[in-house]
């Protein structure tokens, strides 16, 4: 499956939505630091995988889907919620990449320089996620094709 950048999507997001994400990200980074200072790195580390921006981004997905004028109002609400649900399913797959990121940091930190460790861990995370989503999408498509194929096809004579 081909991935591409859709620059027109930049215009769809309002300035306050960017500000909200910045504030969420900044606040959780500060909070993670304060928690680690107070209760130690053991508890502080848990919050490195805290779903900080996820509620904001899922709400945006729901809102953007609702704004599409292709269906009735009720349909749009349901579609928005389903789209946010699918986004959450992808985030669940994405969290496996987050585990890979943390394992890479833990294993590579004593061996390489800090910046190299960060780059390797981020790449490991993103590549694993991409492959998992590709596999999941292929599986979903195969399942859909199977459902639509008749069990006893009529033979052409």
């Amino acid at each position, binding site marked *: 499956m081909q991935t591409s950048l859709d620059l027109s999507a930049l215009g769809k*997001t309002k300035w306050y939505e960017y500000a909200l994400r910045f504030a969420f990200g900044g606040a959780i980074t*500060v909070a993670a*630091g304060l928690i680690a200072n107070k209760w130690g790195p053991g*508890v502080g580390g848990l919050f490195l995988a805290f779903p900080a921006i996820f*509620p904001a981004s899922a709400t945006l997905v729901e809102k953007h889907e609702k704004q599409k004028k292709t269906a009735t109002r009720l349909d749009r609400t349901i579609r928005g919620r389903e789209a*946010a649900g699918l986004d959450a399913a992808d985030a669940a797959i994405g969290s496996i990449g987050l585990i890979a990121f943390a394992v890479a940091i833990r294993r590579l930190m004593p061996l390489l320089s800090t910046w190299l460790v960060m780059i390797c861990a981020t790449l490991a995370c993103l590549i694993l996620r991409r492959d998992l989503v590709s596999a999941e999408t292929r599986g979903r498509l195969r399942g859909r094709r199977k459902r639509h194929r008749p069990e006893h096809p009529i033979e052409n004579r």
Partner: protein
Amino acid sequence: MKELFIRFVVGGTVVSVFAVFDDLLKPKSFAGLLGAAPSVALATLSLTVLKDGKAYAQTEARSMIVGAIAFFIYALCVSRLLVRHKLSALAVTASSILIWMAAAFGLWCAALR
């Protein structure tokens, strides 16, 4: 105070960059990946190494593995509630934070404490 300000700016910037890519990437199935991007972890761990050293960051990374497993459970629950029961995204994602808390602290107490 200065350290907190730097944390806020670095964290906000890294999260925003990942969020912008999240918007730009097509198809959307790839974009959703960045919803769980290691943006907060990237910012925090970089600052932690600079301030407290590599051993401290390694301990945080070990706990992060548990936090990420909790994120997996959280995202699965949110997905199920939204797709099957069609509840409001904000209500589900915000209230399900309790599931993340329970899973993260439960696993941490069981495996790492």
